[in-house]
């Protein structure tokens, strides 16, 4: 089949999607923020691991711990969603599989991200906790 498309029209069809820059910047901004937050998360895990249920609840009641927990969880889920999307786009070339996996990834990172934040807030904002710490 002879193509009657002009070189210009061909180039226009193959050009950029015009929305990559914001994702690129978001990847870098979340990366920078997650460097100290990841180190804090390791420190926090060491602190919380031996505490048991009541200790963990009390720990999350501290505003600073809650703030960093929410930041770490929210930015991690956002960052990993973008990272997984890149991996899927790199290795999956069949259109139907590509779209299915990208959709699944979007649901997983956003769904579990929201669930985590709701769970953290529920624990931290509950007033009727009989914890004396």
């Amino acid at each position, binding site marked *: *089949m*002879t*193509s009657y*498309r002009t070189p210009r*029209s*061909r180039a*226009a*069809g*193959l050009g950029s999607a015009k929305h990559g820059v914001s994702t690129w910047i978001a990847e*870098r901004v979340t*990366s*920078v923020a*997650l*460097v100290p937050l*990841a*180190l804090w*998360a*390791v420190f926090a*895990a*060491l602190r919380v*691991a*031996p505490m*048991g*249920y*009541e200790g*963990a*609840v009390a720990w*999350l009641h501290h505003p600073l711990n809650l703030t960093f927990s929410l930041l770490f*969880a929210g930015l*991690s*889920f956002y960052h*990993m969603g973008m*990272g*997984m999307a890149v*991996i899927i786009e790199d290795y999956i*070339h*069949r*259109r139907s599989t*590509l779209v299915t996996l990208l959709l699944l990834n979007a649901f*997983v*990172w956003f769904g*579990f*991200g929201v*669930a*985590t934040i*709701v*769970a*953290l807030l*529920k*624990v931290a904002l509950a007033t009727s906790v009989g914890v004396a710490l």
Partner: protein
Amino acid sequence: MRLIAVLSLTPFDAGLKGGWKSILSWGEGMSDNARRLPDRPTSPHLTVWRWHATMLSSILHRASGVSLYAGALILAAWAICLAVGPECYAGYMALLGGPIGKIVLLGLTAAIFYHTANGIRHLVWDAGKAFDPKFSDLTAIVVIAFTVAATAATWIIAGMTGGL
């Protein structure tokens, strides 16, 4: 004419699924010329590349990122169990403290240290600096050494503070 003959005799036609053809074929408005491009070797081809530090560090960055994806879901389950109540939380912590849980958490500790340290390397590259191959090899080895040391230190501290 001769050029076309040479192109069509490219040695990469056999044995390679996908390649450029499949990458290009999901773009709309494809020209027929682009569709007829021969399959080219895709990168990275693990079987034809010599292993070196920067290659290993690149693969580990992806592997640790995928591991941390699973780790985030483990963290989500932890937060949800904490919100559900003491029984759920105790059960979940027992699971994490068991042999399988410990192996998973050890891997996640290494993954978070590696991905964070190697992420700094990537940020420096994004700033347009430190592209020298020899220096990149060095920083790759430094990051791997840091990961081993930081993971060991974290687990020793966990052992001393009753976190295991």
